[in-house]
């Protein structure tokens, strides 16, 4: 067993590059992990953390670069190979099987057996040892995992990592699903792992946590390492924030905002809330205005947007469009009053991937092109074609399958859907997720152009720069609460991040 902090070099990644066709997910990442340290990985959404984890866990192969394990160059072709080396990963979505017992989960995939017969007693015994090592002897090894809390499942996942004799455990935002007491407990477990010589790569958005638990920090931005092996104790939070945000890429947000074209609000949200999800929120969006919801993933921004749209049923408050109150929980009502939503997960929530582009564009409006139920596909295609051309959709042939389009063009098709509908209130959830830089500028310009024509836009984005650049007004959401409201020019990225981090750690 290796001694704690200042231990020997366990893992080195040098110049890791990962290309996906058409996109560079990683563009030169360096990472050094010592045995027995808690190494924090920081970066905004899209910085490349997830891809890096996947490279380390054997799920992705790097295009270029070198991985050294205890000084020897290695390749990690499969997840099993990673486990064999001693690298275990705890994903955000915990990969435990609810229907199996704790012990069965711990030894899942490497069951203790001889000749196909399971050694149940040995497995139980070893599971109890592992749980004890993690400071949780109270979890019954025979308990069905589905009956454990999220925190309990995490412990099971860690026990599984230890059962593989893991020397490096990667934890992807482990605190995201935990309440404050459980976080404290998680920290105790992480510390005890560290003291046993296990290295932990800890990923979190919450700077407060990193300050408490981390030994060293590596910061990623835009697929590159911008700072590596910073000592947590010596690095001020401000410096970390500016490393994370940086301003290397300047983005064109499509010119000046038009601002409100009229004082009469188009969309009014009044005391809207869902108990236990987000607290009452009130705001108005006027024609021509862009209002942005900033905050962390899971803070409640998307939930607010979906509730305005009726995709979730509010428990209190109301939404009005041009003064008319919408029925709670009725998408139909929202759509017929001129609200449109471009959802966060375009592929799973927005598109029919096996259908042609035009059918995706007219998904909300095809009934208009029908007389007593009979579709007039010619008129339907023409309407879709017209929008496709005005948005410079590429390819412009709307008969083609939407699956073949790039992320940016798929997003344009989503917007085209609401343009055909003629909606006046547009809700955009992460409008540029999975969209490359060039297409981003086009989407921004499109949003601007729509707002100049009097559309009211309410958007959610995890990229603070985008919210500040595009929106006239910003609502900062943390932990289901709006913690700040104001014009976007009165606040900068650092202040937003400060608000978000404070709010998230209550």
């Amino acid at each position, binding site marked *: 067993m290796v001694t704690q902090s200042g231990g020997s070099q366990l893992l080195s990644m040098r110049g890791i590059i990962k290309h*996906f*066709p*058409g*996109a560079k*997910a990683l563009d030169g990442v360096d990472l050094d992990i010592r045995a027995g340290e808690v190494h924090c990985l920081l970066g905004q*959404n*899209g910085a*490349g953390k*997830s*891809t890096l984890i996947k490279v380390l866990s054997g799920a992705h192969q790097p295009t270029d670069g070198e991985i050294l394990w205890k000084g020897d160059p290695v390749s990690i072709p499969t997840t099993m190979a990673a486990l064999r080396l001693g690298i275990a990963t705890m994903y955000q979505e915990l990969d435990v099987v609810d229907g199996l017992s704790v012990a069965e989960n711990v030894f899942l995939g490497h069951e203790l057996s001889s000749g196909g017969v399971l050694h149940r007693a040995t497995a139980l015994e070893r599971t109890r040892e592992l749980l004890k090592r993690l400071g949780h002897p109270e979890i019954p090894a025979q308990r069905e995992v589905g009956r454990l809390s999220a925190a309990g499942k995490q412990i099971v996942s860690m026990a599984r990592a230890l059962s593989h004799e893991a020397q490096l455990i990667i934890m992807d935002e482990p605190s995201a699903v935990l309440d404050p007491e459980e976080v404290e407990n998680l920290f105790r477990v992480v510390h005890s792992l560290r003291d046993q010589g296990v290295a932990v790569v800890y990923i979190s958005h919450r700077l407060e946590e990193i300050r408490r638990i981390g030994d060293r920090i590596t910061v990623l931005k835009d697929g590159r390492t911008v700072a590596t092996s910073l000592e947590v104790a010596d690095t001020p939070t401000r410096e970390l924030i500016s490393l994370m945000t940086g301003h290397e890429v300047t983005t064109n947000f499509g010119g000046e905002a038009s601002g409100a074209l009229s004082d009469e609000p188009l969309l009014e949200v009044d005391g809207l809330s869902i108990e236990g999800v987000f607290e009452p929120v009130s705001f108005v969006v006027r024609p021509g205005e862009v209002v942005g919801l900033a905050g962390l*993933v899971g803070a409640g921004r998307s939930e607010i947007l979906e509730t305005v*749209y009726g*995709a979730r049923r509010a428990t209190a408050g109301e939404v009005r469009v041009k003064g008319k109150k919408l029925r709670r929980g009725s*998408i*139909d009502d*929202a*759509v*017929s009053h001129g609200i449109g*939503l471009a*959802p966060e*997960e*375009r*592929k*799973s*929530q*927005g*598109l*029919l*991937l*096996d*259908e*042609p582009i035009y*059918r995706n564009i007219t*998904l*909300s409006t*095809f*009934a208009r092109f*029908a007389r007593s*139920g*009979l*579709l007039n*596909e010619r008129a339907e295609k023409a309407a879709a074609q017209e929008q496709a051309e005005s948005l410079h959709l590429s*390819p412009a*042939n709307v*008969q*083609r*399958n939407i*699956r*073949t*389009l*790039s*992320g940016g063009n*798929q997003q344009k098709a989503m917007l085209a*859907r609401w343009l055909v509908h003629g909606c006046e209130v547009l809700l955009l959830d*992460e409008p540029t*997720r*999975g*969209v*490359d830089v060039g297409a981003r500028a086009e989407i921004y310009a499109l949003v601007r152009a729509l707002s100049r024509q009097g559309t009211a836009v309410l958007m959610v984005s*995890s990229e603070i720069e985008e919210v500040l650049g595009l929106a006239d007004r910003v609502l900062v959401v943390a932990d289901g609460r709006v913690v700040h409201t104001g014009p976007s020019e009165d606040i900068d990225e650092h202040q937003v991040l400060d608000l978000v981090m404070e709010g998230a750690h209550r």
Partner: protein
Amino acid sequence: MSETTATDSATETPRRDLSPDEDKPTKTATGSKLSLGHSLGLILALGALIVLGIITGGDRFLSVDNLMVILQQAAVIGVISIGVTFVITSGGIDLSVGSVMGLATIWATTLGTQAIAMDVHWSIMVFTAVGVGAAAGLLNGVIIAYGRVVPFIATLAMLVAARGFAELISGRQTQIITVPGFTSAFRRDILGIPVIVWMFLLVAVAAWFLLNRTTFGRRTIAVGGNPEAARLAGIKVKRHLVMVYALAGLCAGIGAVMMLSRTTSGSSTHGYLYELDAIAAVVVGGTLLAGGRGTIFGTVLGVLVFQVLRNVFVQNNLDSSVQALVTGAIIVGAVLLQQRFSSHSKT
């Protein structure tokens, strides 16, 4: 999370550059390409079976009488399969169609129903059968859409319950049709072709139209392809699902009418295991079991393939166990083929 989405879309971008021929504005945009290629395979298979029939059976196989037997057998299972095609396209499954058909034949031939039919009009029996089918389907749909019971379980329950109900009503007795109007209306030929074959044709054409040319069909495909996207686009998914299952029940009711005319009796054993034949025909026909893509033409071809196969075996006095074996092989082969085609269509 965001990285994964980025890569997903990114990996698909360059593929379109590799296949520039896709830019041609052909009418076969996506789904139809699959069904055309797939249908071609089925037509070839059907042709091969017919050749086999001619070789082994000669004139006996080719005789008009024999062909009409094949078509009449195909008609009942065909109409049921068409209903199931809608359900599977919507992303669901209906295991209850066979026993719902059985229940409908019983209900339409009770002494009471027949007495009314005798007094008023024979079509009372038709409306009863179709109404019972549609009502059972409606109940399936409500339980699935609003009760949030998975379709497999909800329709499995209906399968068992409808059969039991039919036995209860009939006391497990076969109920002979005594209304002369009914039998004379259905047990005859028009232009040399039996009425129930015409009914099959009519239902198939109407169903093709419904699936491909109406808002109902478009909603069915959308709900099956991506229910969440359909919901967020403002489609009333639950209400639509209820209608889809009701439609499948209605088709089972029409199947019941055809069965009554073929057998001149109602029986609680009518339609036994038809749900499996129907699902096999639908899937072999090229409708995706996962939903989002359906083909009526394929279903009709699938039904014909199985019926011709059966006929060839019967004509040659071959073992029906071997027929079952071959049927199994055809199902697997067709689905393997389908997977190859659908992976092509994604490029």
